């Protein structure tokens, strides 16, 4: 296949950025239209990935490789496998929805907003398709700037700057240590193989001493754990989510958080498999704490957006638990749950955004009885809520079920504790729904709310389609991930044997 789809996906938004830069800022419709056209075209370009993707192999596909800084072994090396395919598609799918969603929401500096959005898309796609550590790092960092601006410029005036700076600095803490680890890995690889390269696939087979793996896993792991976000380093997330504009929250939830989990499965685990086994208890416990803690905190939120934000901590805990089970079901569930969370939490943020546009408040206490006033809104909100809870027949169930299955196989205790998270999820989501939508309309201002416009329905409908599709027939999607997952699980199993020996080293205190 000679058609460079992935490069087009990376470059097309930049072309859009260049186009929009040349437009007159007065012509808001033209700017929005251009952004929409670019985003749709991008989605169209990404579709062949789905159809031409060969599900029977774990090999990288659609690979493109050009030398970038040859003297340093840096190359522009992109490709996707079953793990990244769905995430790339999720990104291209969610972006046009975002553009449509902010059609009326964003009035101020539309031009810059669209530039940031498209620039962000380049970064996100780049992260998911990079197979060169240097390239990956560049995209990983680049994507910080537009997101920082989205939160800081278009966010909620009261605390947006605090949230933006917090987001930026948290992410930088992790990524700078990751940079050091990347360099250490690079020179270690050069020392062992004699070849200076940042090629990720070549480093997979590297036999790194355990003591080194230990530190490297932590260095990479911190960067990704902050992004996920895992329990003790999650505190940037509620602020960023709450203060960001609707579209910012959607992208943050749908795609940016996945970079963390994706980082674990693409980089951390295969690069340092023995350490990955060694750290299973730590990360699993943190994941379980995240699940329960996120759910409990959601329960007491008075702000809708903050509630959804904390539910993310809980959902992503499930993903991490699934990935760290190293079982077929767990990992596949983790991958599909990444998509699910992107869809349902993305949709939840959209919904909260829509009601915020009408009432300019997000406090649960300000609502009540909305379902009478806005029936269409109520129906859609209900479906998304149930999907987030994990009702059978909707997407959330598939992911959580597979994850729990895998986790149960790996360690029953974690699974049992994690399963309580499902119950809590039902509690906080349904209670929230009840307070917002049911009962009598107590607040005068809520009496005359307009139901969803056609545009808003058009924003949510595609998401609903996939929520139901994944729920009813997940195999369409699971099949794509099967080969890569199987390969990953086999790889991890192989590493397990050596892990036992490595653990002994720790006991003897040989570790510096």
């Amino acid at each position, binding site marked *: 296949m000679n058609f460079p789809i992935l490069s087009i996906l990376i470059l097309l938004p930049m072309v859009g950025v260049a186009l929009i830069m040349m437009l007159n800022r007065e012509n808001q419709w033209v700017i929005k239209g251009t952004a929409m056209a670019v985003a749709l075209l991008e989605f169209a370009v990404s579709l062949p990935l789905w159809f031409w993707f060969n599900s029977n192999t774990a090999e990288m596909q659609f690979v493109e490789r050009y030398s970038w800084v040859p003297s340093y072994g840096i190359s522009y090396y992109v490709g996707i496998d079953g793990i990244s395919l769905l995430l790339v598609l999720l990104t291209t799918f969610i972006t046009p929805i975002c553009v449509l969603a902010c059609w009326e929401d964003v009035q101020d500096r539309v031009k810059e907003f669209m530039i940031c959005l498209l620039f962000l898309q380049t970064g996100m796609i780049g992260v998911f398709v990079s197979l060169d550590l240097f390239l990956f*790092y560049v995209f990983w*960092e680049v994507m*910080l700037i537009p997101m920082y601006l989205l939160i800081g410029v278009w966010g909620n005036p009261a605390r947006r700057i605090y949230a933006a700076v917090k987001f*930026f600095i948290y992410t930088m803490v992790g990524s*700078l240590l990751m940079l050091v680890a990347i360099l250490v890995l*690079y020179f270690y690889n050069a020392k062992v193989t004699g070849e200076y390269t940042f090629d990720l696939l070549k480093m997979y087979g590297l036999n790194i001493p355990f003591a080194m793996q230990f530190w490297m896993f932590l260095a990479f792991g911190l960067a990704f754990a902050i992004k996920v976000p895992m329990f003790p380093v999650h505190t940037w997330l509620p602020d960023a989510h709450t203060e960001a504009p609707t579209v910012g929250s959607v992208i943050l939830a749908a795609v940016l958080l996945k970079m963390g989990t994706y980082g674990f499965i693409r980089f951390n685990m295969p690069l340092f498999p023995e350490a990955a086994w060694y750290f299973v208890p730590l990360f699993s416990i943190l994941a379980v704490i995240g699940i329960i803690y996120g759910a409990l905190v959601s329960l007491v939120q008075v702000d809708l957006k903050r509630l959804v934000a904390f539910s993310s901590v809980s959902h992503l805990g499930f993903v991490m638990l699934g990935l760290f089970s190293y079982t077929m079901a767990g990992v596949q569930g983790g991958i599909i749950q990444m998509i699910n969370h992107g869809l349902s939490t993305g949709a939840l943020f959209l919904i909260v955004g829509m009601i915020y546009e009408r009432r300019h408040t997000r406090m649960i206490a300000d609502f009540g009885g909305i379902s009478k006033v806005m029936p269409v809104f109520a129906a859609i909100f209900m479906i998304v809520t149930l999907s987030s809870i994990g009702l059978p027949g909707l997407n959330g169930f598939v992911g959580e079920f597979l994850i729990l299955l895998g986790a149960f196989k790996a360690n029953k205790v974690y699974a049992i504790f994690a399963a309580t998270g499902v119950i809590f999820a039902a509690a906080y989501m349904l209670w929230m729904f009840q307070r917002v939508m049911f009962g009598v309309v107590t607040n005068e201002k809520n009496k005359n709310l307009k139901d969803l416009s056609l545009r808003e329905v058009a924003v949510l409908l595609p998401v609903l389609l996939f929520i139901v599709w994944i729920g009813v027939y997940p195999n369409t999607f699971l099949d794509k991930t099967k080969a890569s997952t199987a390969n990953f699980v086999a790889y991890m199993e192989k590493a397990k044997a050596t892990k036992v020996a490595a653990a002994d080293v720790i006991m003897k205190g040989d570790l510096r």
Partner: protein
Amino acid sequence: MSIDIPTICLTNIGPLITLSIAGLLLLLFDAFSGKAIKKAHFHQFSLVAVGIALLQTAWLWNRQTTDFSRMLYIDNFSFFFYVIFLLGTGISIILSVHYLENYQKNYGEYYSLMIFAAVGMMLMAAGGNLVIIFLGVEILSIPIYILSGLFREDLKSNEAALKYLLLGAFSSAFLLFGIAMLYGGTNTFYLADLAAFIKKNGMNGFTYVGMGLLIVGFGFKVSMAPFHMWTPDVYEGAPTSITAFMSVGTKAAAFAAFLRVFFEVFPSVRMEWDLLLWVAAVATMTVGNITALAQTNIKRMLAYSSIAHAGYIMVGLIAGNQLGATGILYYLLAYTLMNLGAFGVVIAVARKKDSYLNIYDYSGLAYQYPGLAAIMSVFLFSLVGMPPTAGFIGKFYIFSAAVQAGYIWLVIFAVINSLISVYYYLRITVIMYMKPAEAELGPVATTPVVNATLIISALAVLLLGIFPGAIFTLAMNSVKIFGS
């Protein structure tokens, strides 16, 4: 007794000759021109001189030789630094014009002194003999002492000049004493002979003391902690255009000499100086960054940040390998572009008589001047070290050199410091983009030439960040002289 008349080739010092003549001519024009030559032409004349020097430099590419009885190295290392110096001088001249006119100080000698300073820098980079290097230091420093005090009526400018003069003299004394010690220990001023002597006989008491004193001397010039105290006051008090020039030019020149001397003369005793520099580098970064956090005057903030950048560059020096040297060269080029660019924006925003130097004066800049704010952001993100900018690649090279040499902790300290720097650089973008303008900003006047310079610098910063290969290879070739 026969007298050897050494064969010399004047084209080898072509750029130096051009600049020296141009500097002298400028002084004469200024004195005798009267109304015949308008003052406006001085900067054009100096730019032409810099341009010619640049062309002559291009001709020097790839000539591995020495000249003037081994007094000067004519090699790619000098070449690379010539380019940095000329670039820095050229951009500084462009940024100066409007600024000086506002103060009605558009004198001929200003440009003349700047050009002489550039000659001094070149001598420092090319010197093959400690005396030449010292000569370079002085030719560089004396014009800068004068230029810092250009605004005679301004107390701060006076303070800057005096402070720089006193501490500069102090550092020169250290340098000179170190040179004397080395001469005492080895009987030679030539770097090559010094290297040969030390390789053969090892170090002795004199050379150790000499080496230590050299570190102190150079440390002053690169503003290495604990010899950085002069930097913020001088940078704040000096005319902004001079601060810009000084922050990149002096630093690059001092690092050129530092690099050449230590990589050529003392590589065999690396273990003895690297621990010293390790501590100094970490201290430099930390002091610079932590103090920059608390600054509200943008010149002062950039002054402290320049101390921090000296710390990062020292990481490459400590790495002590070819990659480290390459990284330093790359970083200095990137730093020249990004720091001069940032100062260019500062000059533009400060306007008449530096009335807007507080960081909160930037609030709302992005609303009124989106272009200027965007360019400033590029420079700031590059100073932070975010991809895809030159600053990131520079840091990447330097840090990777240190990792290669096994200084992992040093790199961890360096990245933690980069993290601290994120906060204060980011604060400027926060103020520009996210704070509403507190008062009407008023017109920010820039000339088309300044605009073009800033845009080109910003593009260059991005381009170097996205396609670092060519310059990297160039820098790599430039440090081949250091063997190992």
